[in-house]
């Protein structure tokens, strides 16, 4: 019995899925006759067998993972742009083994070629002298860093990590669209895409032998470490990021964690004696290799761009002296931007003696008279990008989108400054299926492939970041412009293996317990993270205690405490004018515009968390996200529903407790944890003192109902009742909140914890004398332990508690002093924060 050939290999339920073919494009999944390509059969078979609802359910899970893992991409020029969730499509792009081998080999050749060109441009420059490359392409390129000429990097490698965008033309031929040689992004997103897709399509992946991605990263890590100029057992490699405002900061933190490198910003590094050091709590630690994500021109304000705040002063000198390796080499960006493309075929033959294996998309540099004439003739069919002034990063202009006046303007601009422009043909990119509401829809795609220098050649990551346009006929494929991404499966030639193969294999590591490699800046941020988390919780408890009584107050009970409550609220929330009603306080608390409100404090928690993201567990990050969502939901302008607010406050308290629980249970007792905890303890200590002072300031004294409130906001009601079985009285309440070392909410408890922390920190001081922070902790502990509580809570003749007030005031100022001391001694690390590096220049008259 024979089957109709058209049925064999046909997309099961292809017509049910209704996948249309777009004219004039190659489709990755279906051939010109509408037949499913063989390597898509298992996936489509499985997808078709999967009920649509099941797929929706799985995909909802995938999207939740993206949100919860905090996968984000910052979009410039969009007020909500910071931290936009990453866009991922569940259907992977699939490449058969043989096709991939060809792509990987062609791109490795291209990487070798670019490396050779870099070596020439920063060395003898024979390519320019012999006319193989127009001098303008180097001289006018902002990425040509003259101070680096004549500096030969270790092993002659300029390009350690290289990314290239390729797209498939309608005839099936892959073409190179652009090269990324400065500080390529995307590999971390590709890895995260794989993690998510292998979670939701685990069973489908089993039907393929998908090449895992992690061996590529292990090799990258080992190869980078091997570049270390010092032959040492454990070279220190850091990942240099421009900081959280960079569009791909998520990836910097993610890769740093994955590769086991310390994530650093420029201010964490310093050059001393011609070497690069990391400023840690344990002093300066030498750095051997820097994987940079900062553009090279910004890496050293002394010799490169003097206006850069992202640079390390003296870095170029250290590179020149060979005491540190920077990957990619400073200056590698000069081969980025596209203008080299027309010259690469000839350069490949000249430098490698080989034909270029993968063609570039047809392109013309307008600085060439003949090319310019061609470009001007067919401007309507080309894409024009400014080159010289922007290094190829300016806005693309599509000739076909311009009206005749616009085209005339562009032509005039090209004639005026021809060397400034590059023109590219715009082939119709191949399409891939995109999942949407149970249907598959074709979208143009571009694939970013990553390669790393390895063993004298380049190794490609088997897979890549597939990027898709936001519309069927989209011309631009860019995450900045709202497109999405896909995982890319490269099929292995081995037997199918479980999808879990993508998990990192345990690489042999030296066992290390605890590390002092904590940059001072990170310690500072962790400290404030701890403080803000605690402040959030304290504020929520206070507001909750009062709002819940407001309810009771309506039917007679509990109204007595309200005046004192207002006094406490005033102290904590610092209203700009005289806010009287509790409702007004609550509104203000949830208004993010009020700097001392709850919402603003929660925002600070989020900001601090994002600054130390690589130090926080995924669960902690999720808990921070939940905290922000809870508070955001309450900000609806001028109305506040009493019930909703109370329930939100409950959630905030829970989220705050969850955060501290996570810190207690999940952070190893290293320095990171220590600084979070110091922040929390210090904040809580201040809060106890503030609360007591606030209660005393309420002129009608401290009697039963007020004491109830005090116990509640300090979460000590149960403890009190279990001890005293009676209505609260001042002396025992004061003892419980101030001096009882067994009550985790008391001041004494915080001080005991702080003392222990100071003790441990002092180990790093390596001094036999007590440091100032230790002396303060000892003073505080003595003061609280020796305080005569009975005397302190005896009222004066005028009914006030002046001794107690004075005592609290002293405690408050000592706590403040402790915070300042920590900042001075541990966080700023010999450089006062008020004075960022200043650039000096002597003008010429």
């Amino acid at each position: 019995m024979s089957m109709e050939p058209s049925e064999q290999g046909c997309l099961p339920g292809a017509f049910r899925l209704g996948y249309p073919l777009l004219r004039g494009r190659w489709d990755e999944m279906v051939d010109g006759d509408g037949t499913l390509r063989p390597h898509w059969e298992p996936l489509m078979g499985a997808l078709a067998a999967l009920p649509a609802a099941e797929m929706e359910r799985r995909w909802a899970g995938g999207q939740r993972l993206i949100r919860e893992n905090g996968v984000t991409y910052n979009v410039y020029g969009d007020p909500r742009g910071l931290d936009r969730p990453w866009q991922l499509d569940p259907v992977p792009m699939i490449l058969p083994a043989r096709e991939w081998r060809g792509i990987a080999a062609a791109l490795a050749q291209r990487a070798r070629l670019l490396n050779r060109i870099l070596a020439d441009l920063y060395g003898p420059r024979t390519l320019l002298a012999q006319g193989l490359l127009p001098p303008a392409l180097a001289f006018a390129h902002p990425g040509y860093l003259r101070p680096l000429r004549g500096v030969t990097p270790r092993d002659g490698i300029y390009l350690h990590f290289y990314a290239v965008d390729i797209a498939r033309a309608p005839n099936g031929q892959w073409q190179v669209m652009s090269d990324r040689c400065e500080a390529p992004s995307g590999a971390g997103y590709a890895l995260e895409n794989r993690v998510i897709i292998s979670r939701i399509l685990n069973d489908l992946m089993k039907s393929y032998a998908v090449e895992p991605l992690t061996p590529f990263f292990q090799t990258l890590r080992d190869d980078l470490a091997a570049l270390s100029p010092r032959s040492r057992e454990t070279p220190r490699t850091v990942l240099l990021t421009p900081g959280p405002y960079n569009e791909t900061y998520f990836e910097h933190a993610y890769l740093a964690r994955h590769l086991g490198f310390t994530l650093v910003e420029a201010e964490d590094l310093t050059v001393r004696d011609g070497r690069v050091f990391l400023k840690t709590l344990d002093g300066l630690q030498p750095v051997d290799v820097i994987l940079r994500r900062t553009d090279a021109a910004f890496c050293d304000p002394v010799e490169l761009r003097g206006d850069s705040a992202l640079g390390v002063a003296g870095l170029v000198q250290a590179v020149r002296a060979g005491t540190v390796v920077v990957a990619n080499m400073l200056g590698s960006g000069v081969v980025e931007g596209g203008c080299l493309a027309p010259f690469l075929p000839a350069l490949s033959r000249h430098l490698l003696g080989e034909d270029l294996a993968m063609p570039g998309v047809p392109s013309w540099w307008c600085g060439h008279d003949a090319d310019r004439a061609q470009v001007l003739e067919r401007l309507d069919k080309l894409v024009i990008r400014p080159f010289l002034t922007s290094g190829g990063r300016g806005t693309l202009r599509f000739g076909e989108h311009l009206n005749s006046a616009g085209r005339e303007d562009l032509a005039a601009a090209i004639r005026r400054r021809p060397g400034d422009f590059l023109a590219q043909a715009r082939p119709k990119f191949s399409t891939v299926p995109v999942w949407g509401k149970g249907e598959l829809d074709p979208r143009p795609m571009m694939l970013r492939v990553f390669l790393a220098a390895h063993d004298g050649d380049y190794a490609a990551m088997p897979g890549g970041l597939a990027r898709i346009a936001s519309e069927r006929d989209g011309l631009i494929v860019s995450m900045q412009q709202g497109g999405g991404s896909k995982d890319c499966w490269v099929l292995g030639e081995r037997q199918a293996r479980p999808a879990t193969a993508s998990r990192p294999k345990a690489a042999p590591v030296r066992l290390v317990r605890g590390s002092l490699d904590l940059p001072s800046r990170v310690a500072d941020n962790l400290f404030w993270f701890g403080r803000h988390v605690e402040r959030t919780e304290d504020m929520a408890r206070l507001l909750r205690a009062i709002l819940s009584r407001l309810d009771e107050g309506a039917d007679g009970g509990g109204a007595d405490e309200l005046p004192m409550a207002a006094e406490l609220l005033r102290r904590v929330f610092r209203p700009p004018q005289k806010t009287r009603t509790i409702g007004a306080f609550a509104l203000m608390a949830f208004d993010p515009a009020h700097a001392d409100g709850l919402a603003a404090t929660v925002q600070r928690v989020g900001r601090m968390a994002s600054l130390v993201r690589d130090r926080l567990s995924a669960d902690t990050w999720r808990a921070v996200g939940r905290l922000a969502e809870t508070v955001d939901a309450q900000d609806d302008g001028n109305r506040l529903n009493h019930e909703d607010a109370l329930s939100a406050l409950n959630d905030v308290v829970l989220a705050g407790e969850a955060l501290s629980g996570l810190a207690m249970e999940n952070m190893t007792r290293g320095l990171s944890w220590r600084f979070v905890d110091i922040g929390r303890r210090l904040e809580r200590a201040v809060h106890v003192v503030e609360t007591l002072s606030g209660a005393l300031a309420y002129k009608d004294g401290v009697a039963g109902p007020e004491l109830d409130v005090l116990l509640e906001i300090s979460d000590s009601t149960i403890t009190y009742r279990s001890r005293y079985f009676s209505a609260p009285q001042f002396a025992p309440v004061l003892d419980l909140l101030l001096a009882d070392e067994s009550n985790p909410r008391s001041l004494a408890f915080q001080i005991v914890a702080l003392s222990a922390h100071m003790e441990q920190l002092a180990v790093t001081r390596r001094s036999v004398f007590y440091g100032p922070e230790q002396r303060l902790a000892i003073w505080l502990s003595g003061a609280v332990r020796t305080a005569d509580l009975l005397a302190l809570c005896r009222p004066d003749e005028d009914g006030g508690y002046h001794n107690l007030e004075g005592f609290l005031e002293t405690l408050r100022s000592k706590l403040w002093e402790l915070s300042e001391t920590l900042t001075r001694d541990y966080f700023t690390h010999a450089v006062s924060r008020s004075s960022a590096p200043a650039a000096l220049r002597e003008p010429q008259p």
Partner: protein
Amino acid sequence: MIYLIRHVTTYSYAEPVLVAYHHAHLTPRGFDGQSCRRSSLRIHPAPTLLDETGSDYFGNRVAFFTLQEAHRTLTVEATSRVEVHPRALPAPGETPPWETVAAMLRAANGPTLLDAMEFTFDSPFIPCGDPALLAYAAPSFPPERPILAGLLDLMHRLYRDFTYDPAATTLATPILRVLAEKRGVCQDFAHLAIGCLRALGLAARYVSGYLLTRPPPGREKLRGSDASHAWLSAWVPGAGWIDLDPTNDCIPGKEHITTAWGRDYGDVSPLRGVVLGGGDHSLKVAVDVEAL
């Protein structure tokens, strides 16, 4: 002519500077127009690291130094003895038409032209894309005019049209503003002239150095009253680089001493640096140029 040059730069800081990185172009380079007989660099406080043997991308002599001890003042004293060999100037009428020069540079091949080609493009202080530069340059460069005649005319016009005014500009003033307001100092005039020439497709570089000054008749020359100076140099086929000083409307001859050249001020600023700490700072520069 032989000159003794003393250039003292003093930075005073409101707060201690903890670490400082400096980069100096203070030692005159040698080339066919001059030879530097002797030079020394004295730095106080003594730097932790000092490397004064190097030369930069453009072949200028450069010194790097780092101070890792806290300090409130920094004094750098550069002393040099330089012999200047004035060169003969070609007759302006015999130089090639400027368009020919521009065309040569556009089609540049070969190592000799490469050196000139380098100086035909935009540089950080001198963006040349604005049509206003071309418009200002045009009257000096009518079709077929010999390049040197055009250069001299542009220099005369800059001298005539612009007012020397140290209060008008800072290091950050863009050249288009200088062009619009017609005021500035030597650095501005040099940048502007270079921008005009590059807009035409010609090669021009920035020269940093010194100028011998004379006291008013009957007066003693005051110590430290000289200053560093800046002008430009344009490439003329057959003659090489020809200096032009638009601030003083003259062709530098035996009274200009060259320290360094580059694309613009940024490549050759006499002393640049990055300091950690320091707070506000003030700068004092004293220069003496003495003819021996």
